[in-house]
């Protein structure tokens, strides 16, 4: 018991590294706020293109893109971009590598969610909107997409929570987010308390979101 307190919940260590870890938490938050909108927006574009086009080869290419990046572990993608691309003589800042990797991976997940949403809106909605004189784009923008988004809101929230958790892989390419600074702190103080503190901070950030998601899902099921 004493060993656990000493090594996992060492208050003296907590006090020393708290400010340091808080900066890491802040990096995690803004990194998430950077990559979530990029992924959601490109996913929406892919989903709209895939559901609206009549060209089969476009549909096929988009489905292949989505499946390809769903089958690819995000960490592998990140390492490939971060370590591979510089061999071509292209200088790639690490934040850029992370942004590109996250965009490719997240856009395919968000695209699947939005596609399910768009398909859940009855065809009569778009037809009715068109018959009132709206153009195809207007019908999509003002009628179909708002309903689609509402129908898949729990999935969108769930996906975004997964993205926040995924930012931990940026630690592998030395972006000073929460996990990275916690591991740096651990090697400075020779005590694993900073990692446990980081885990507690992730819980503090994400547990309320997970609870909120559960309630959202529950309400969604009942509303149907």
């Amino acid at each position, binding site marked *: 018991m004493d060993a656990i307190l000493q*090594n996992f919940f060492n208050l003296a260590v907590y006090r020393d590294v708290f400010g340091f870890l808080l900066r890491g938490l802040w990096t995690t938050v803004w990194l998430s706020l950077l990559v979530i909108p990029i992924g959601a927006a490109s996913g929406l574009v892919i989903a709209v293109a895939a559901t609206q086009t009549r060209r089969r080869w476009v549909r096929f290419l988009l489905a292949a893109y989505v499946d390809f990046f769903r*089958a*690819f*572990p*995000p960490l592998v993608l990140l390492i490939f971009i971060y370590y591979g691309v510089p*061999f*071509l003589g292209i200088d790639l800042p690490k934040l850029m590598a992370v942004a590109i990797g996250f965009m490719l991976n997240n856009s395919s997940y968000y695209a699947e969610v939005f596609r399910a949403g768009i398909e859940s809106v009855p065809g009569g909605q778009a037809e009715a909107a068109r018959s009132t004189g709206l153009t195809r784009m207007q019908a999509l923008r003002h009628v179909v997409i708002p309903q689609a988004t509402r129908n898949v809101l729990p999935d969108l929230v769930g996906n975004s929570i997964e993205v926040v958790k995924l930012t931990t892989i940026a630690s592998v390419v030395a972006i000073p987010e929460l996990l990275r600074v916690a591991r740096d702190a651990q090697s400075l103080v020779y005590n694993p308390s900073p990692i446990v503190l*980081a885990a507690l901070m992730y*819980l503090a950030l994400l*547990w309320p979101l997970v609870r909120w998601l559960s309630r959202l899902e529950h309400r969604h099921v009942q509303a149907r």
Partner: protein
Amino acid sequence: MEWFDRLVFTFFNAGVAARYLPDIVKGMGVTVALGLCVVAAGLVLGLLLAVLRTLHRPWLTLPIVAFADILRALPPLVVIIVLFFAFPYIELSMSSFTATWIALSLVLAAYAEESIWAGLLALPRGQSEAARSTGMSWWRTLRFVLLPQALRIAVPALTNRVISITKNTALGSVVALNEVLNNAQSASSNAGNPTPLTLGAVAYLIIFLPVVLGARWLETRWRWKR
């Protein structure tokens, strides 16, 4: 065409590929073995927790809900790192394979428990009442009436989870587990050429593309049958 030659030399270098192919294949063995172990342990534990939750005992439900919440809130990489780097300080050392296996199994169990429980909740009350009134015991009701239906409802959520969590086996490379990504990385730094990373990427596609397509097929089949 100079840039094209350079691209081929850099990412598709046949000499480098031939030299390091055995490493990648060995890594594939570890990745597949780890993935199968995670799926088996995670689904069994998740199912067990969901069944225990049907007993409606607060002293069981509370820890199960807390477990599921915490492991759904924590990033899997954090769980792996705590197990591998922090637990040795309390005399609980484990190999990188064990640490990754336990961490990912617990995460999968948390999600599986939630999905199966949601499936059970979605069933009309009449199902269990009817089964019980025919004289079936609680266990037989669960085993033959409720779980088969609940599992069918949970399948799409479960397949998605299984895919995303088995892909997380790549996180084992952070604790130096000799799976595909780790082998590809050390090979490419030995060779001074990223071709092994390309091989690793292809290896992941060989392993996971069939899984993704299979899941898609399973989900459509399920939808048709309803």
